[in-house]
């Protein structure tokens, strides 16, 4: 089949679909966790019960994860409506209303996709979309990720077809002029990497896509692969054509079973249409892609460690140079890029380098994709032009902090990144400004922290992670992260001395300098940035044995205010997992501090009208005998751990 024929067939399938009503249900991992599969089943049951033939299509994620399960209903002569939080109970109503009848049930809708429908908002005009620019994510949630024809009908693979008619050098020039930088976090110019690999001597050459998205709190690559995997495959094929590779690998982490499944199907469909194989689109150029699964090691995200994993070895990094472009997989020249880097390539070929480089800032072009989680209202995913500020992302797109709490920090880049304080909220986000702030773009996970989060605890959390994930090759990383973690443990437990803060700082600088790869080289970032911007919190832990956010269990106690306790209510007594809350019906309830494990259940269940449970820090704020009991309890549990 010629590409024209493939395209015509795809377009006619897509047009046929538009001529009938159909239902899109977001069943990416986030949708599934929110119950999308039950919603899907409910639609299928309701439709068959009424004997209606309407297609239900599983799609990926639109990024509005806070409103999952998401459903879109499309009708040929009417406007498309997107509904949020669609549980199975709402399904009969939507079928009755908008499938059978003409009532679009706008009271349940997030908005319409066509606009001009009176009270229902036009989705692209929602405040958040004024700041967003969806390029990589433009099809996510609108097309069937396991139907290649949907991708092709919406412009897919026309860039490949165009690229195969051009010289590799022209494509390299185009990518270079676009000023695309690596989306894995480090930001190396992509065109330059392609040029190095193109001119490197060696045969065979390989193309590798890094989808080992290990940063806790980041899930952009998962969403791309679950929602629109073909664009990544297309980008890889173009890369392979440029460097003359015959074999490629997509390395996906095993924790993403749905992404693995959808990529497998996508590869098979591309092969069936001759877009992958020995003679791609009759051009004489052949390329195959194999799926390689990660086995759960964070360090595998580092490029040289990733290649070791593909080869079946322990995933440990090796010194660079030589860079993968010269000597990569099995010592051969290898083009290794992140999922989103490859996904940007077809766009650049389609719309041109000038268009791409008109978006963004001086040194960082195109868009940045972030996942937004933590203490923010609209959790989910967003794609914005480079140079957007943190304030726009948190407040205009994210809808601000829940429960009118105050913003404390934003953590970017996971265990390799840092915490950005309120004073830097107006920083335009790009590779260079983040590096100046002591952080890095990283993979793009943004976690918002509010007044209830302890910055020392956050640093300790990341160090706990990097200590466990250090591959053990470099001494400074293997032992240095452990030492830093121990100092942080002492600080959060109130056992640290003032000079420990200086020691921590020195150690952090040494670990940075003495590690081969980015895991060790960036592991101190969470400590260095919190020390730089939140030193007062460290000092409160060390000097006053106080946790300002009232998080650290050794420095914080739960206490029931006797004059506020309602007596006849027993919520706290009945729910306490360690039976630490005492008091008969009609008596004031008291927490046995020796037994209390700081789980916070009593505070959660105490009815808001009484509001009798409070958190105290330092522990010396408790009545003296309670404080002594608390100390005894902490000591006992510390022994159990040993």
């Amino acid at each position, binding site marked *: 089949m010629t590409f024209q024929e493939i395209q015509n067939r795809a377009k006619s399938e897509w047009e046929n679909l538009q001529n009938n009503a159909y239902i899109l249900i977001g069943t990416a*991992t*986030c949708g*599934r*966790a*929110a119950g999308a599969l039950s919603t899907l089943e409910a639609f299928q049951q309701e439709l068959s019960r009424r004997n209606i033939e309407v297609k239900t299509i599983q799609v990926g994620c639109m990024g509005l*994860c*806070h409103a*999952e399960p998401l459903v879109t209903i499309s009708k040929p002569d009417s406007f498309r409506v997107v509904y949020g939080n669609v549980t199975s109970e709402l399904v009969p109503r939507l079928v009755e209303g908008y499938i059978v009848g003409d009532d679009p049930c706008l009271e349940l809708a997030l908005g319409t996709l066509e606009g001009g429908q009176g009270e229902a908002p036009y989705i692209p005009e929602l405040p958040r979309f004024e700041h967003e620019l969806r390029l990589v994510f433009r099809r996510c949630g609108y097309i069937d990720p396991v139907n290649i024809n949907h991708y092709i009908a919406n412009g897919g693979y026309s860039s490949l077809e165009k690229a195969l008619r051009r010289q590799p050098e022209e494509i390299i020039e185009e990518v270079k002029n676009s000023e695309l930088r690596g989306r894995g976090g480090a930001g190396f110019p992509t065109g330059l990497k392609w040029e190095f690999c193109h001119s490197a001597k060696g045969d065979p050459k390989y193309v590798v896509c890094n989808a080992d*998205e*290990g*940063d*806790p*709190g*980041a*899930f952009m690559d*998962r969403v791309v692969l679950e929602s629109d995997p073909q664009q990544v495959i297309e980008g890889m094929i173009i890369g392979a054509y440029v460097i003359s590779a015959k074999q490629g690998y997509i390395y996906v982490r*095993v*924790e*993403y079973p749905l992404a693995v499944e959808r990529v497998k199907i996508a590869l098979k469909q591309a092969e069936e249409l001759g877009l992958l194989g020995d003679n791609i689109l009759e051009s004489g150029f052949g390329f195959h892609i194999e799926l*390689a*699964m*990660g*086995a*759960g*090691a*964070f360090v595998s995200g580092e490029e040289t460690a990733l290649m070791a994993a*593909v*080869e*079946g*070895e*322990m*995933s440990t990094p090796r010194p660079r140079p030589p860079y993968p472009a010269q000597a990569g997989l099995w010592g051969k020249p290898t083009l290794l890029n992140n999922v989103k880097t490859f996904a940007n390539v077809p766009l650049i070929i389609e719309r041109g380098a000038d268009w791409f480089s008109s978006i963004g800032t001086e040194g960082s072009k195109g868009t940045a994709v972030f996942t937004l*989680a*933590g*203490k923010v209202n609209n*959790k*989910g995913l967003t794609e914005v032009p480079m140079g957007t500020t943190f304030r726009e992302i948190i407040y205009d797109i994210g809808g601000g902090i829940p429960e009118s709490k105050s913003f404390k920090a934003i*953590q970017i880049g*996971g265990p390799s990144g840092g915490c950005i304080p309120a004073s830097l909220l107006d920083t335009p986000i790009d590779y260079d400004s983040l590096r100046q702030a002591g952080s890095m773009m990283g993979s793009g*996970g943004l*976690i918002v*922290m509010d007044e209830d*989060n302890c910055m020392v605890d*956050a640093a300790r*959390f990341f160090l706990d*992670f990097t200590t466990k*994930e250090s*591959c053990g090759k470099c001494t400074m990383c293997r032992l240095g992260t452990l030492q830093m973690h121990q100092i942080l443990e002492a600080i959060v437990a109130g056992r640290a001395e003032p000079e420990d803060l200086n020691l921590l700082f020195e150690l952090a600088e040494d670990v940075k300098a003495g590690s081969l790869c980015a895991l060790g080289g960036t592991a101190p970032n969470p400590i260095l940035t919190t020390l730089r911007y939140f030193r007062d919190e460290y000092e409160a832990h060390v000097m006053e044995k106080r946790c300002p956010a009232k998080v650290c269990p050794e420095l914080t106690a739960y206490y029931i205010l006797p004059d506020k306790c309602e007596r006849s209510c*027993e*919520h706290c007594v*009945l*729910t306490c*997992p*360690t039976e630490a809350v005492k008091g008969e019906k009609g008596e004031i309830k008291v927490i046995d501090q020796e037994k209390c494990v*700081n*789980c*916070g*259940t009593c505070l*959660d*269940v105490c009815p808001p009208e009484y509001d009798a449970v409070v958190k105290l820090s330092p522990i010396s704020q408790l009545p003296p005998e309670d404080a002594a009991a608390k100390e005894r309890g902490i000591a006992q549990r510390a022994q159990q751990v040993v």
Partner: protein
Amino acid sequence: MIGTQEKEQLAETLSSYGKERKSLIPLLEEVQVDLGYLPKEVMQEIATFLAIPEVEVYGVATFYNQFRFVPLGKHHVRVCMGTACHLAGGKLILEALERELGIKVGETREDGEFSLERVACVGCCMLAPVMIVGDGIHPRMTPFKAEEALIPYRQKSDGASSSEEQAGAQ
């Protein structure tokens, strides 16, 4: 020790792979899916098949977090300890489950019903904190809800009860 049936299955799995070093990790993954863990003799078989030293197989298997050397419980409980889950109290969930199940993280109960594990991030950060029992994701946990969430799995296995009476409290 593994039985004859497992041995036959292993032989079949091995025959579908090429005798190349790059087959090692996919092989370990597939065998673990079949058996639930990696028994010592399976690793020896794989070493023989790929003609590499046993220590290499063991080295690779222990390097990656994904591989396990003891069987899992009938209900495998995982608690997400990603950043968003940590900030939302993931550690409290893990502690509550340790108390409730009477095992520490990484262990399997003696009766083989439950095992408990921490995972780095399952990418459902907007539902934090989450726990996963088998394949089912339980969103927005509290220590109390986590204990409650185990009840159906307990009833499914042996009807054992300890804290169910508390369930009416909310």
